[in-house]
């Protein structure tokens, strides 16, 4: 791939090498999930779970309580594997999708938990009466008080993460509530081993269960704290802050540690500003220029308290980055021509992606912004496109002032890009725009596997 000179401020430097390609297959993920489910359900069945179903009501409820409890744990285990952000998995699926699956698994876990509680109470209520059963299961039985606290925490965390609630909570509030989930899960582990007959009465099953939980804890500690320690040991510093447009700032981070880094255009980092009151939180920011050993450039729109602080960051501030993450990278393109669609601050990943394309891709860029004042990197974009036999189309103005109702309908797209069906489509921007482009491109005949989207991170 040829790399013509670019307008980027850091173009003189050597581009970072690509992160290693992941060799994980969908079938591998399926095999792991399938095997875990097989063992969990098999364990339950082998201990008489299936046989108990047709039996007395108490046995049936006990058996169902055990099954739902085990499945609840399985969903929790899989959900925690996703938060390890393990590179081989991330490189294959992208952090964005992993977060989504994590959310779905969390919801599944809450449903299984509710069923588990209901079945357990039903089973214990048969000899003891409902009130006694609830009393036993919330305090009298060993470790059940702890487990009750844990379950309540897990349910609160899940509810606070439902989209409806999530939008009403500040990020900080949601984050700290979410952190308590670790305690919730740990608190409910004890009762599985002491009260759950599947593990209390079978040493092999108990060894397996304790083993995978211990392994998970080690894995989590390493992946969240170990990698953080590594990142802290390799800080970068702010070396340039440029006002790009209204509320849009580009920040360049540099440091000697970039010599060993690997990254591709279109990727993003979790960025932590080492500033009083901000060091504990990270923001995902997309690269807005080809990453080089001279520096990483991010283009940030002030949107929340934290990104706001980032646009006013002082030169020389220590910044810690974790990453890179993201799978919408130039290596998804072979030799096809490319259409890049940027919405708002999605221009950042599009510029960094474009910079790593060659003239054989004849890139066409559609740049959508709601106001002239918010347009950033436009000169850079034009220069990069021209150097690669490409062109830039801008579509600027609030939606109501546009000539067409849907700027990404297949008709409009085909008019602007007649050979659309032969192109690979890359789209970065707000979720609603990404969906509109995906819909339009699909209707215009682009195969689904040739449409790559990255939510804009800023």
């Amino acid at each position, binding site marked *: 791939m040829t790399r013509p000179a670019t307008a980027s401020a850091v173009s003189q430097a050597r581009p970072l090498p690509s992160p290693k*390609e992941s*060799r994980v*297959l969908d*079938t*591998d993920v*399926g*095999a*792991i999930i*399938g*095997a875990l489910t*097989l*063992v969990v359900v*098999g*364990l339950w069945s*082998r*201990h*008489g779970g299936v*046989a*108990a179903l047709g039996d007395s009501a108490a*046995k049936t409820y*006990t058996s169902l309580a055990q099954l739902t409890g085990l499945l609840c744990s399985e969903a929790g285990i899989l959900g925690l594997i996703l938060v390890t952000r393990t590179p081989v998995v991330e490189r294959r699926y992208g952090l964005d999708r992993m977060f989504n699956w994590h959310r779905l698994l969390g919801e599944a876990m809450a449903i299984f938990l509710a069923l588990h509680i209901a079945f357990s109470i039903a089973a214990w209520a048969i*000899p003891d009466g409902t009130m006694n059963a609830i009393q036993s299961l919330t305090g009298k*039985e*060993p470790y059940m008080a702890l487990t009750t606290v844990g379950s309540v925490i897990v349910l609160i965390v899940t509810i606070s993460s439902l989209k409806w609630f999530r939008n009403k909570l500040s990020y900080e509030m949601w984050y700290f509530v979410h952190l308590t989930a670790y305690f919730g899960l740990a608190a409910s582990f004890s009762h599985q081993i*002491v*009260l759950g*007959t599947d593990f*209390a*009465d*079978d*040493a*092999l*099953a108990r060894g*397996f269960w304790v083993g995978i939980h211990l392994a998970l804890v080690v894995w989590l500690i390493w992946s969240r704290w170990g990698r953080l320690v590594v990142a802290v040991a390799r800080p970068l510093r702010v070396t340039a802050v440029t006002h790009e447009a209204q509320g849009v700032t580009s920040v360049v981070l540099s440091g000697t540690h970039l010599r060993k880094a690997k990254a591709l255009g279109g990727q993003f980092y979790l960025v932590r500003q080492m500033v009083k009151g901000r060091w504990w939180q990270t923001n995902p920011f997309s690269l807005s220029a080809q990453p080089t050993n001279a520096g990483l450039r991010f283009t940030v729109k002030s949107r929340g308290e934290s990104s706001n602080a980032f646009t006013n960051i002082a030169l020389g501030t220590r910044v810690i980055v974790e990453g890179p993450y993201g799978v919408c990278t130039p*290596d*998804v393109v*072979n030799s096809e021509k490319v259409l890049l669609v940027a919405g708002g601050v999605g221009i950042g990943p599009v510029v960094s992606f474009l910079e790593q394309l060659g003239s054989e891709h004849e890139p066409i860029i559609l740049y959508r912004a709601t106001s002239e004042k918010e347009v950033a990197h436009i000169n850079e974009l034009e220069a990069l496109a021209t150097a690669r036999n490409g062109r830039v189309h801008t579509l600027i103005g609030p939606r109501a002032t546009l000539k067409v109702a849907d700027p990404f309908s297949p008709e409009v797209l085909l008019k602007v890009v007649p050979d659309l069906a032969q192109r690979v489509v890359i789209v970065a921007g707000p979720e609603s725009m990404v969906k509109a482009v995906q819909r339009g491109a699909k209707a215009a005949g682009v195969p689904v596997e040739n449409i790559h989207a990255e939510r804009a991170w800023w």
Partner: protein
Amino acid sequence: MSQKPTLGRQIFPAVALTVVGVGFISLLDNPGGNGGVALEGAFGATTVPMNADTTTVLPEVAVDPSVVVPQTTLAPSPLVTVAPVVTPAPVDVTTTPSTQQATSATTCDGVAITGPVASFRWGNIQLRATFSQKNVLCKVKVLTYPTDHQKSIYINQNALPIYNQEAIAAGGANISVVSGATESWRAYTADLQAILDSHPAG
């Protein structure tokens, strides 16, 4: 982009993990999996002392539960050896806590009641409780407990003497659970409660 992975590469992890998973499951305990015949055989053996009068069964020593375990010739690794303990002796423990001893002089010469068979996931538990003249629970004898499985024998021989002791101390079925023997506890307390409910003096 890498080339398409081979079919073998796609299938191998699934096959390997399935084999490992099935192998693991087959190593787990499988209560009741040996069929009902073995179960009945075990019950037949343990019901022998049930017909015998309480007073004729074995010398009644006030045994600490920890003493009971060595009495039974259990192999230390219950998963491996199967042969030695086919029909274990019923747990026969008469525990008389010192406090009780002082107050009620413990002459177990009142009514003796045999409870119903309480069946649960790992087998059956049946108790025989003896009361003093003042209708105070003073002795609990386990007539039947799950024996179709080495693990069950091990767990119950550990837990049942403790339950006996607790029941006498509490004078009823309100006893706490021994970890690892929850289901036995539920069957035990249910059976003891049934005995107490059927006691003529209420």
